[in-house]
Structures are given as structure tokens and as C-alpha cells.
């Protein structure tokens, strides 16, 4: 059984990576779809399978079982959609440049889903993170770069926190970082609280959980649909997945942290609702949706931490929940994105047509440009109509460009203070 599935496992991860290279020169047709096929096969393939890879990093492995298949299904669906969406805007030359990143991100995602231990998960999710960065900024405008920068900072800080957690886990278990082993080992050690804090902080940052969600809102403003679609679903799902897999839920009761997390979840939902009403543009809707929904999940996590019994009761729901959550968010983003696209499509395409089609679709172009102008007027009118007061409120929460900067650094600094406090506590 394992022998049969061996190659496919490898392909799943290595396939997209290998495809990334020819994709640099766009030599392969349909590279994005091609890359997803192995994963698709894996879903269809019946039965559980696992593969140990002792030679990789500190020794890791891949495995498919019922739980993983849920997530896999969600991922494949989301990625397929994204690939298709992206395919439709083929004329965009940024497409070719984005493809490698798309593939890298895909590889990271799939690898993280399949990994059977912490290091594997960490490595692949890091790959995914940097891939996302590429996807976010590949459009290349200033807004995108700003978003990318923010995203990067969060990503790096998150990785640091997770790295820390990893070290603690490795120290406790003596190098074996299988999920099961770690969960059990961490339940009974003094450093488990530090580990929890670190891992939670890391995943919070990665998933864009309030109050460290900021990269999400900025990114959504500027990224193309194929990216936002992914951003909407994948990171949140992966963040939650990571948290569920890394943390000894159900085995440890950590009331304080649980409560803190629950409060954060509530606050996130409140915040999202508030913002949704004040921050009217349609594009941003998925953002607030995401924030709100993740708030919900965070509440769930907090509850699990505070009351392990509750967690154990509903544990069987975890993976379907994560998968459906991801799916839902992606769908939400996609839907709104399509609407958005419909309105913005002429703007983009017209310019491209003008540049790219020398054989004269002149008439059509003129008409479309006229329509575009009208649309622009409409949009500015609409913007002017917004209440001044709303803008004032908005500033309280989101100050725009300076805020991005401040948020980024404050999050980092908090992180360090946090680390220090916990160490002091540990040492004392």
C-alpha cells in the first residue's frame, strides 16, 4: 500500500516545486492545474497511507487519513478555483510571474497538510507563507508592496514564535516531533505554558486573527482575486489546523490562557461587526467576514483550552469544521471578488487590450473606455457620499498608512516583551 502511494506523495509536494522552474519561462501549459492533479488523486485514492522520510530535515513524514482528507479536499477545491480564476485573466503578463509563487504556495500548503510532525508542518507552512508574499506583491503596485511588507513582518514574527515553540518541544521530547508525541509530552511539562503561548501567538499571526489581523485588510485591498480567494481561506484554515495539531487540546487545562483567547475571539467578532458597518466598501467584506469567523474559531479554541472536557466532546468535529470554514471563507471571498471583478474588469482589460492588441479592436476599446470613465465618476461620487463621521470612527481603529507601520512594529515588540516575561516566569 505504502509502496504504491509513495510516488504520489512525493509528487504532491515536489510536483508543484518542479513545475515552478519551467513555469518561470511559461514553458508548461496549465501548470497550475497540473500541479493540483496529484493531490486530487490522493483524495480519490481510498484508504489511509503514510510515508516516513527520515532523511528529510530531522526526519519527517507524510500521512493521509480521514482527518487529513477533509482538509485536503478543502485545499484542493480552493486551489483549483484559484487556478481557474487566475487562468481566466490570462492576458495579464503578471500571470506568468505569479505562477511560480502560486506553485510554491500550493506545495507549502499541501506539505503542511500532509506533514506528520511539527518540523514538517513548520517548514511547509513557511514555504507557503513566503509563496503568499509573492502572490500578494506580484501585481507590483505600491499598495501591494505595502501589504506584502506587512504580511512579511507578521510572517517572520510568527515563524519566530513557532520556531521557539518547536525548540521547546524538541527539548522536551528529545527530538521526536510527531504530533502525537509532542501533544502528550507537552501536556505534562513546566515549559508547556510557554510552548502554548508561543504556538498560539504564531498561529494567530499566521492566520490573521484579531488583533494581529492587519495584514489581511491591507492585502485584500490590493491583491488580485485569485490571490484574495486563497488568502481568504487557506491561511485561516492552516492556522487553525496548526493550532489544533500542535497544541495538547483536551489533555491540558489552562484556564487563564483559554479565557484570554476566548475574550480575544469575542473582541474579534465585535470588531469585525463594527468595522463592517463603518467600513463600507464591498471589497473589504470578506476581510471582516474572515475576522469574525476566525473570532468564532478562536473562541472555540479558547474554550477547548479552558475546558478540556468540552473539547474532547466535540473533538471529532474539528477537521470538518476547519475544512468547511476554509471553504466558506474562500467562497465568500470568491463571490464578492467576482462582483468586484465585474466592476473593475474593464478598467484592467481595456488598458491591456490597448497595449497588447495591435490588430485593432479600436471601436470596442473606445466604447469600453467611455463606460469605464462613467464608472469612475460614479465611484468617486459614491465615495464622496460617505459620511465624514464614519471616516472619523474608522481612524480610531485603522489609521491607514502610519498605522500599518506602527502595528507592525508594536506587534513585534509585544512579541518580544511577551517572550521575555514568560522566560522570566519560567526561570523564577
Amino acid at each position, binding site marked *: 500500500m505504502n509502496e504504491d502511494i509513495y510516488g504520489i506523495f512525493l509528487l504532491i509536494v515536489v510536483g508543484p516545486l518542479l513545475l515552478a522552474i519551467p513555469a*518561470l*519561462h511559461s514553458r508548461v501549459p496549465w501548470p497550475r492545474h497540473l500541479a493540483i492533479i496529484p493531490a486530487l488523486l490522493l483524495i480519490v485514492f481510498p484508504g489511509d497511507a503514510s510515508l516516513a522520510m*527520515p*532523511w*528529510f*530535515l*530531522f*526526519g519527517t513524514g507524510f500521512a493521509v487519513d480521514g482527518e487529513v482528507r477533509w482538509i485536503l479536499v478543502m485545499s484542493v477545491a480552493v486551489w483549483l478555483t484559484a487556478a481557474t480564476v487566475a487562468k481566466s485573466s490570462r492576458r495579464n503578463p503578471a500571470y506568468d*510571474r505569479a505562477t511560480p509563487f502560486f506553485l510554491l504556495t500550493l506545495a507549502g500548503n499541501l506539505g503542511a497538510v500532509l506533514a506528520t510532525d511539527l*518540523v514538517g508542518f*513548520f*517548514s511547509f507552512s*513557511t*514555504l507557503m507563507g*513566503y509563496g503568499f508574499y*509573492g502572490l500578494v*506583491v*506580484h501585481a*507590483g503596485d505600491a499598495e501591494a*508592496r505595502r501589504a*506584502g*511588507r506587512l504580511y*512579511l513582518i507578521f510572517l*517572520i*514574527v510568527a*515563524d*519566530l514564535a513557532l*520556531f*521557539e515553540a*518547536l*525548540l*521547546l518541544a*524538541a*527539548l522536551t521530547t528529545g527530538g521526536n516531533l510527531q504530533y502525537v508525541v509532542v501533544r502528550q509530552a507537552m501536556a505534562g511539562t513546566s515549559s508547556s505554558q510557554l510552548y502554548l503561548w508561543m504556538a498560539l501567538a504564531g498561529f494567530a499571526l499566521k492566520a490573521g486573527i484579531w488583533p494581529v489581523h492587519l495584514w489581511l485588510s491591507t492585502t485584500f485591498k490590493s491583491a488580485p482575486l485569485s490571490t484574495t480567494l486563497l488568502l481568504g481561506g487557506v491561511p485561516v484554515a492552516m492556522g487553525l489546523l496548526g493550532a489544533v495539531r500542535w497544541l495538547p487540546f483536551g489533555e491540558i487545562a489552562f484556564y487563564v490562557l483559554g479565557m484570554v483567547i476566548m475574550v480575544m475571539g469575542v473582541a474579534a467578532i465585535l470588531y469585525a461587526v463594527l468595522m463592517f458597518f463603518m467600513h463600507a466598501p464591498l471589497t473589504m467584506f470578506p476581510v471582516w467576514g474572515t475576522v469574525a469567523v476566525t473570532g468564532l474559531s478562536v473562541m472555540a479554541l479558547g474554550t477547548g483550552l479552558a475546558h478540556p472536557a468540552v473539547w474532547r466532546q466535540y473533538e471529532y468535529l474539528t477537521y470538518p469544521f476547519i475544512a468547511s470554514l476554509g471553504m466558506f471563507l474562500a467562497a465568500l471571498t470568491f463571490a464578492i471578488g467576482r462582483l468586484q471583478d465585474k466592476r473593475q474588469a474593464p478598467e484592467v482589460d481595456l488598458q491591456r487590450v490597448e497595449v497588447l492588441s495591435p490588430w485593432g479592436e479600436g471601436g470596442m476599446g473606445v466604447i469600453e473606455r467611455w463606460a469605464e470613465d462613467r464608472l469612475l465618476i460614479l465611484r468617486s461620487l459614491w465615495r464622496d457620499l460617505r459620511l465624514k463621521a464614519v471616516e472619523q470612527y474608522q481612524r480610531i481603529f485603522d489609521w491607514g498608512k502610519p498605522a500599518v507601520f506602527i502595528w507592525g512594529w508594536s506587534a*513585534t515588540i509585544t512579541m*518580544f516583551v511577551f*517572550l*521575555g516575561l514568560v*522566560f522570566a516566569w*519560567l*526561570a523564577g
Partner: protein
Amino acid sequence: MNWDAWIPLLVIASSLLPGLIIFFLAEDRKRLRTTLNLAGALVKLALVCWMLWGVYHEHHYETRLTLLPDLELVLRAGPLSLLFLTLSTILWLVTTVYAIGYLEDSPHRSRFFGFFSLCVTATVGVALSGNLITFLLFYELLTLSTYPLVVHRGTEVARRAGQSYLVHTIFGGALLLLGTVWLYTLTGTLEFTPRGFLNDLGEEHRPALVIIFALLIAGLGVKAALVPLHGWLPQAMVAPAPVSALLHAVAVVKAGAFGIVRVIYDVFGVDFAAGLGVTEPLAWLAATTIIYGSLRALFQDDLKRRLAFSTISQVSYITLGVAIAGPIATIGGVVHLVHQGLMKITLFFCAGNLAETLGIHKVSEMSGVGRRMPWTMTAFTIGAFGMIGAPPVAGFISKWYLGLGALEAGQEWVIFVLAGSSLLNAAYFLPILHRAWFQEPQDAWPEEHHFGNKETAWALLLPPLVTALMALGMGMLASAPFSPLGWAQFISQREFYRP
């Protein structure tokens, strides 16, 4: 006839002889020179592989020549020696290929390659040294053979850089000499011994030993670019790219770092050193260097200078690893010797490619270069991610063991240093990557050369790709039996912490 005793000497000779011959070749004997260079490198590689196999199976390779009445010149291939030796040998081969491409048609090639081979000879000698005086000998030879390489361009800036290099290294060499002699007068031996040879020394010598340690570390710290002895390194950037690559990745800085490893583990013995209380200050010094180098790197626009400050920072990981004085951290430090070498040499190769192909010297000129030279920049990206410590590039492995080792040794503060350094590394590398991959190129490159439909010459492109792949492979395959990590663990078990 015991051939095992000759192999270390042959390893030395395999670069020394070609070097000496090359000095006397006419400038236009390109083919012969190339053949000599590559043949030497390949022979050396073969010998090293042979010894790797042998040492793993407990063979002993040792050459002894009398140097002073009671002191011998000892060349010995132990596991630690072989780690550094293998690194030097492989990178010499790669760098030679690169240099052949890089120096196409530039003047004084014979001189360059001659000193280049001498430099490698010295590095190999440093690696194989079996006692402190042999180490000192090759260490100084390294100083002498790199100086001409630093000033190779012959400009005023180069001359000043060379002067700065000399002032630092001569000064350092003097301190090292002093420490060595002093140690010798106390112990009467200088032989590198697993777990040190000072254990039997009386209590009354402790203050002297502390000073000796400081002297040795100061002497080695110059080459290892420990703050505040790092001043020469950024200046030495005026040298041609292969030199910078060799200087920063293999030869010079590594010789310093390797020396520090030797001093702590084979001269003092790590437990003894920790007992003296000297490792902790060293760890702090290394930490300071790590942060300082990264901070300085943030503000450099000149690409090579940025890389140089990055080197300052990264090399101190090695020092930090051994100064933490625990078995796991040691593995991290020692394996970083190799990892940093591969990653940094990749980066320098790429920087050289940019300069040679497009005339790019500054970060601010790199906009959109990823599209013009995708392969080069891919290699660069891998190297940069390795530096940041992102998995699965080799740098991750080093950081992992360093962090784990620090926790194990109860030195939690090191985690902050690592985290801070990673952040800073990201802060100065990621903008480069961003600019290269995502920004629109400018209208024209500063000075563009065309190489047919390739992005650059093969000899320039292959080396960074090879080293980048190796850096990647060493990270991904860290658990494979003959990976540097595996070997570092082997070293730690066999030499440093054998019960």
C-alpha cells in the same frame, strides 16, 4: 611504507604545487592554468573523500615533521578537520570554476590564481593542523596569501583595504603568537587533544589561562570578524568577487572561527573553559557581533558591503555555538561552519554575477533583476532564505541546533539573539529579494554584457547554482548519514563529548 601518513601532506601539496607552478606561467597560458587548477582541486577532492571514508572507519591520517626541537608540525585528519577540509576543497573547486569565468581577460591572472591556490593551501593547512603551532603557521600563511588577493585590483581603495586588512591581521597574529608561546611555556605541549590538554594544570595558573584565552580569541577573532575586530572585512569588499566569496565563505573568516572551535574544544576543553568562566563572555561577544553586524547590514546600499556585514553577523553563530558550551549548541556551531560557507559563497557568486553581467553593485540598482537573470536570483534567493534561517535551507538546521543547544544549556537569552538576528536578516535580505523579483526594471542596466541567449556565462552561473543546491540539499537531507549535520554529530560524539 605507511601511506596514511602521507595523505595529509599530499592534500597540502595538491594545491601548493599547482599554485607555485602557476606563478611562473605566462598570462596567456590559459588552458594549462585552468587544467592545473582543476586537476589540483579534483585530486584534493579525491584525497579528501578517501580520508572521509577512512576516518569514519577509525583510520588515522597523520603527518609529523619536526619544526622546533620539542615541537612538531602535525597534520592530522580528524573528524573536525575533515569537516572544514571538505568544505574548503569543494568550495575551492567551485570557486576556481567561477574565477576562471570571472577573470576572463583581466590582467595578472597567473598572479591571482597562484595566490588563490596558496590561499587554499593555507586554509587546508589550517583545517589539518594537529597542534596550535601548525595552526599558527598556516593561519599566518593565510594572511599573507590573501593580502595580494585583497589588493588585486590595485586601486587606491584596494590598497587601503589591504592595509586595513593587514593592520588587523598582523595585530591579531601577534596576539595569537603571544598566547601560543605563553601556553607552551606553561604546558610544554600544543597538541590538539580532545577535551583539551590543560586539565592537569594547577590552580595557580588560572588567571594566566584566562589571559591566554583572551589573547588567542582576540587573535582568532580578527579573522572571525568579531566586533570590534571586524573593521577590515567590509573594506576587503573591493576584491574581485571570487576572492570575496572565498574570503567570506571559506578561507579567512572560517579559519578564524575554526580556530575558535579548536581553542575551546581541543586546547582548553569545553568543560575546562566553562569552568574558567571564559565561554560566557565569549558568547556575549558573539551575540553582540551577531546583532551589530545585522544592524549595520541594514543600512548598506552596496550589495557586497551588505553581504560583508551579514558575514560578520553570521560567522559569529559559530562562535556563539561553541561558546554556549553544550553538546547540541556545538553541533549547531560546527555545522554552521559548513552551512554558512555554502550560503554565503552563493550570495557572493550571485553578487559577482550581477556586477560582471549587468554592472550592478548596489541594492538600489537591482530592481527587476530577477527577470533578467532568473537563475542567478534563484540561487541568491535560496542563499538569502538560508541566512534568514527559513526551512528547509541549511541555515535553518544551524539555527535549530543553536537554539536547542542554548535552551539545553540554560542560556535562554541566546534565543532572543537568534530571533533578533533572524528578524534583522529578514529585514536586510527580503527587501533585496522583493526588489529583484517584484519591481519593474529600470530602463538600462549600469553596464550590460551579453552572453548569447544565456543570462550570463556558464562558468559564472553554474557555481552559484551548485552551491545553492547544496545549501538546500544539506538542509533538506540533514538527517542523511553523510550530511554535514551527521558529521557534526559524529564530531561531537567522537571528539568533544566522548564520556
